[in-house]
C-alpha cells in the first residue's frame, strides 16, 4: 500500500436539499491518528459512512487504501475495520461466539480466529469471561472488545465513530492506549469524537461545522495559531466565528 491511506477531493453528500458533507478534501497518511471533531450533525458520521462504503457520495471523489469508494467498495471492506457509536456485538451471544461470528464473516479460518481470540482476550484480561454472555460484561470492557473485534482481520485502516461515548474516563484512557499501539504498528486510525481532551491524542485533527472542514492541523499548531492552551478553547473560538459569519467558511 502507498503512504496515503485515505484521500478525498470535494467529497459531498446531500440528503434532499440538506448537504451533510460539503466538498471535503482531506489526505490521511499511513499510521496516522486522524481525528474528526465537530458538534452533533456536523457531518462526521456521514463522512465516515461514505469512506466505509455504507453511503454513496453524491459528489467528489474518495480513495481508501488505494481503492475508489464509488466503484471498489467490496475491496475497501476487506481492508477496513469499523466501530460505530452503537455497541455492535450481540448481547445474547457469548464473547467467544461473537469473535467467532465476526471472524467467520471476514472469511478467517477457524485456526486464525482461535489464535486471534486468545490474543484479544489476553490483551483485555478477559480470558475468564470467554464463555460469558456479552450482555454481562462491564461497559468499559465492551468497548475494548468491540474494538478488538473490529480489528480481528488486521485491517490497515480503522474507522472509529465516537468509540468512547458512554465510557468512563479510566476505560477511555486504556482505549486510547490501544489506539496508539495500533498506530505504532502502522495502522491508520480515523476517529470521530466530541471529547476535546481526546483530540489532543490525535496526530492531526480536523474540525467540522455544517458539513465543511473549518480547521485542519496538528493539535499543537491549532493551539498556537489560536493562542489557546487547549483544543476545547480553540473549538469554542471557531464555533463563535462560525455563528457570527456563517458565509465566511473555509471550503
Amino acid at each position, binding site marked *: 500500500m502507498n503512504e496515503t491511506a485515505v484521500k478525498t477531493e470535494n467529497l459531498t453528500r446531500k440528503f434532499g436539499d440538506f448537504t451533510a458533507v460539503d466538498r471535503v478534501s482531506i489526505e490521511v497518511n499511513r499510521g496516522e491518528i486522524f481525528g474528526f471533531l465537530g458538534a452533533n450533525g456536523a457531518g462526521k458520521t456521514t463522512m465516515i459512512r461514505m469512506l466505509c462504503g455504507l453511503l454513496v457520495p453524491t459528489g467528489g471523489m474518495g480513495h481508501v487504501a488505494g481503492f475508489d469508494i464509488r466503484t471498489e467498495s467490496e475491496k475497501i471492506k476487506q481492508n477496513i475495520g469499523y466501530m460505530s457509536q452503537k455497541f455492535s456485538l*450481540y448481547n*445474547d451471544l457469548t464473547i467467544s461466539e461473537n469473535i467467532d*461470528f*465476526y471472524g*467467520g*464473516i*471476514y*472469511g478467517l479460518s477457524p485456526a486464525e480466529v482461535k489464535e486471534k481470540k486468545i490474543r484479544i482476550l489476553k490483551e483485555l484480561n478477559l480470558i475468564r469471561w470467554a464463555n460469558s454472555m456479552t450482555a454481562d460484561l462491564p461497559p468499559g470492557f465492551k468497548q475494548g472488545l468491540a474494538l478488538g473485534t473490529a480489528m480481528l482481520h488486521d485491517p490497515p485502516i480503522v474507522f472509529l465513530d465516537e468509540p468512547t461515548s458512554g465510557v468512563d474516563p479510566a476505560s477511555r484512557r486504556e482505549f486510547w492506549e490501544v489506539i496508539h499501539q495500533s498506530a505504532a504498528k502502522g495502522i491508520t486510525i480515523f476517529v470521530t469524537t466530541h471529547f476535546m481532551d481526546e483530540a489532543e491524542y490525535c496526530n492531526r485533527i480536523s474540525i467540522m461545522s455544517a458539513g465543511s472542514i473549518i480547521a485542519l492541523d496538528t493539535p499543537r499548531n491549532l493551539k498556537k495559531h489560536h493562542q489557546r492552551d487547549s483544543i476545547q478553547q480553540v473549538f469554542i473560538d471557531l464555533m463563535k466565528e462560525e455563528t457570527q459569519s456563517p458565509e465566511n467558511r473555509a471550503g
Partner: protein
Amino acid sequence: MVPKRSVISSFAKKEFFHIIRDPRSLVILFLMPILQLIMFGYALKMEIQQVNLAVIDFNRSLSSHHLIDQFRGSHYFRPFYFDGSIEQIETLFKARQAHAVMVIPHDFNRQLQRHRSTPVQFIVDASDANAATTIRNYIAQTIRIFNQSHNRIEALPFEVRSTIFFNPDKKSTYFFVPGIIALLLVMISAMLTSITITREKETGTLEQILVSPIKSYQIILGKVLPYIFLAFAIGVIILLIGIFLFGVPFRGSIILLLVLSTLYILTALSLGLMISTIARTQQVAMMIALISTLLPTFMLSGFIFPIASMPEILQYFTYLVPAKYYLFIARGIILKGSNLMHLLQPTIFLLIMSLVLLVISIRKFEITLED
C-alpha cells in the same frame, strides 16, 4: 477469496444462537400454534347438528307421528310441537326458536292410506343461506327414507346413487384441518423472519455486518437456514396433532408431505425476509407479516371459501397466495393420497414464489444499504 460456505454457516450459526438463547419466545412459538390448532379445529365446523324443527301437525294421526319420529330418529333434528298458527312462524324464526317448520296437512294420513301423493310443507329460515341449504338437504334425505318405508307408490323413473370418495361422512373437520395447518405455518414462518433484519437495524449490528465483505445473498441465506429447521419442527408438531387429534385419515406419503411443507415454509420465510428488508422497526415488520398472511390465507386460499365461487377478479389474486398451493398439496396428500406427479403444478408455483421472494429480498437489501 473468501470461502462462501463458511461465511453463510457462520451467519447461520449466529442466528441459531439467537433462537436458542430466547427460550421464552421459543415456548410461545411452539405453544401458540398448538393452542390455535386445537381451538380452530373444534370451532370450525360446517355441519349443523341440532336443527330445531317446529312441527304444526293438523293431522295428529299415527302416520304423522311416524313422520315426526323419523325426524327425531335422525340425530340432526330436534322436533317439537308448535301450537300457534302459521302466521306466528315468523316470530319463531325471529326469536331463533326454530330453524325450520314442518306443516303436516289435515288429510295426511288419509292420503297415505290411499297411496296418494300428499304435500308436507317445510319452511326454512334462510337468513344463513349455507345453513338453510344444508337443512334442506337433511330434510330431503329424511323424507326419502320415510317414503321408502311408509309410502311405496311412486316408482321413480331413475334413481341417483352417488358414491362419495375420500370423505364419505363429509366431515368438514377433515377439510379444515389442513387449512388451519396452512394458516399457522405461513403466519409463524413469516413473522419469524420478518423481525430478524429489523432487529439488527434497531440494535445497530446490521451496520457492523454491512461494512464487512459479506454479500447480501450470504446474509439472506444465513438468516433463512436456521429458521427452516425451527419452522419445520413446529410444522411437524402441528401436522401430527392435526392428523391424530382430529382423526383425519392419512392416505398419502408422509415424507412427500414433509418435503412439500418445507417448501411452503421456505416461501413464507422468504416473504418474512422481504418484509424485514422494507420495514424499519420490528413492530411494523410484525404487523405487515401478520396482515399479509392472515387475511389472504383466510379469505383467498380456498381454506373456507371455495375459490370457484369468488368474483373473477378476486380469483386472479388467489394466485398470489402461497396457502392456495399448499392446500392443494396438503389436502391432496392427506385426504386423497396424491403423489408428486399429481401435485406438480402447485409445487412448481411454490418454488417460483420462494425464488422470486428471495431474489427480491437480496435486491431490496442491497438498496437498503444506501440510505
